[in-house]
C-alpha cells in the first residue's frame, strides 16, 4: 500500500482510490473503419510496463475526480501527479538494469533512481 497525493484533497491512502489503468489511450477517430484487430488493440491490449508507467487514477472514495500518475511499477514509487488532458511528463533517472531488474544472482526487486517531483 502507498499514499497518493490527490491534487484536490491532499495525501490519502491508496485504498481510497481506484486505478483506471493505462493513460493516454486515445479512442480511435474512425470507429466504423476499424478492423477487428484494431478494435482488439484499442479495447484490450496494454503496455503493462515494469518501470515508469502513466496511469489514470480516480479518488473514488473521496472527491471522485480523475487525474494522472506517473508511477514506477517496479517499486510502487509515485514520480509525478498531473492533470487529465496533460501530456505525459518526462521522467529523468536510471531505469532497471535488466528488463526485469534482477540482480546478477538471485531474484527480487532492485531499486531504480527516477527523480520524484
Amino acid at each position, binding site marked *: *500500500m*502507498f499514499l497518493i497525493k490527490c491534487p484536490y484533497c491532499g495525501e490519502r*491512502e*491508496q*485504498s481510497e482510490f*481506484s*486505478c483506471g*489503468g493505462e493513460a493516454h489511450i486515445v479512442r480511435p477517430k474512425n470507429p466504423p473503419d476499424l478492423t*477487428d*484487430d484494431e*478494435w*482488439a*488493440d484499442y*479495447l*484490450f*491490449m*496494454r*503496455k*503493462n*510496463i*515494469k518501470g515508469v*508507467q502513466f*496511469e489514470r487514477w480516480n479518488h473514488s472514495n473521496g472527491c471522485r475526480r480523475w487525474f494522472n500518475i506517473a508511477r514506477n*511499477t*517496479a*517499486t*510502487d514509487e509515485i514520480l509525478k501527479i498531473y492533470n487529465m488532458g496533460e501530456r505525459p511528463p518526462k521522467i529523468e533517472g536510471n531505469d532497471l538494469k*535488466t*528488463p*526485469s*531488474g*534482477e540482480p*546478477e*544472482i*538471485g*531474484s*527480487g*526487486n532492485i531499486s531504480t533512481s527516477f527523480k520524484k517531483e
Partner: protein
Amino acid sequence: MHKKPKKYSVFSLIRNAVSYHENWQPVWRSPEPKKEYDAIIIGGGGHGLTTAYYLAKNHGLTNIAVIEKGWIGGGNTGRNTTIIRSNYLWDQSAALYEHALKLWEGMSQELNYNVMFSQRGVMNVAHNLHDVRELKRRWHANRLNDIDCEWLNREQVKEFCPIINTSPNIRYPVMGATLQRRAGTARHDAVAWGYARGADAMGVDIIQNCEVTNINVKNGQVTGIESTKGSINSKRVGVVTAGHTSVIANMVGIRLPLESRPLQALVSEPVKPVIDTVVMSNTIHAYVSQSDKGELVIGAGTDGYTSYSQRGGFNIVEDTINAVVELFPLFSRMKMLRHWGGIVDICPDASPIVSKTHIKGLYFNCGWGTGGFKATPGSGWVFAHTIANDEPHKLNAPFTINRFSSGELVDEHGAAAVAH
C-alpha cells in the same frame, strides 16, 4: 550424456540414512548453456518445467533449455495457496482444467517424487441468493461435463466442515456450498522440483540465475535469445513468465491484453489439525486450508493496480482476515507468521492465453492470472504440443490471442471463486 538419476524408494532412504544423508545426488544438474537448442523455454516455474518435461516425454524433443532468472520454485510456483480443482463453468475451461486434474492424480507415481497431492475436497460457499444460483448453475455445468460436483445445504456444510460458522445471524450467512471431492491441494515447490528432476533426467538443461534480456527475430522467425549468460540460438522459444510476460512481449513489440498485479497470501502459526478441506468464498473474498505442517494457508485478492513489486496493500489483507474470522471465529486469536505477494498476469476474461504469435517459432503461455497452479501439468501438456507441432492442442485451441479480435472470450470471472 549425464547419469540417470537414482530412483527414490524406501531402500534409497535407508541407504542414505546410514551415510547420514550426505551422499544424495543433486536433484538436477546445473549446466552452462549450450550455443544452440531445439527449443528454449523462458521461465522455470511450474508451467515452464512441465512444458519442457512433456516436450521431452510426449514429443521426443530433449535438446531443450529452461531459462530461469531466479531459482527453481522461487517465483509464483512457491507463492500460491496450492489449491487444485477443475469445477469451471465453461466447457473450454472445464476440459483444460479437468485434464490437468487427471494428471495431478498420477503425478507422484509418474515423477517418482512425492508432490503430496491430497484430494481433501474444495468447498465453494454461497452467502446470498445470487451465490446460490450461480454456484448451482456451475454445479449443473460441471455434471454435464462429467466433473464431480455436489451441492451441500447448510447442515451438510456444517457436517463436512464442523468448524465453519453457519449461524444465520452473521453478516454473510452460509446458505450452501458446492463441493468437488476430487479437488484438493499439493506441495507447490515439490511440483517444481519433481518436474525439474524429471525433465533433467531426459536431458533438459535447467539454467538458473540467467535472465533473458532480448529475443532475436529475423524475417519474422525467432532465431534465439540474448541472456545474462550470453546469446543462445533456437528456432523455437516458449515464453512462460507469468507476471513478467509483458516484459518479454514488449521486447518484440507483441501487444498482450495483460495487467500484472500483486496477489497476496499469508500463513499462520502451526496448530493441530482443525480443517481437513479447502474452503473458498467468493462473496466475502477469502479462501483457507491447512497445510501438513499445521499452518493455515489463507489467500487474499489482487490489488487493484499494476505492480511488479511483489507486495500488496495491507487493506487487502485486512478485508480477507475479516472474512476468515467471520466464517471461522475460532481463528480470531491466531497469529500470522508470513505474508507475501506474487505478481499475476490477469486477462480481461480471466482465462489463459496458450498461443502461437505472428512471429514464427515464438509461443506464449500466460494470462493464468490468480489460478495457474492447479493447471500446472495440463498447461505444460498443451503448450508442449503447441510448440512441437506449431499447432494448438484441441484443449488450448480456444485459448489463442486471436480470441480478443474474434470476440470468442471465455469469461471465467466467476470461476476463481474469489472475485478479482
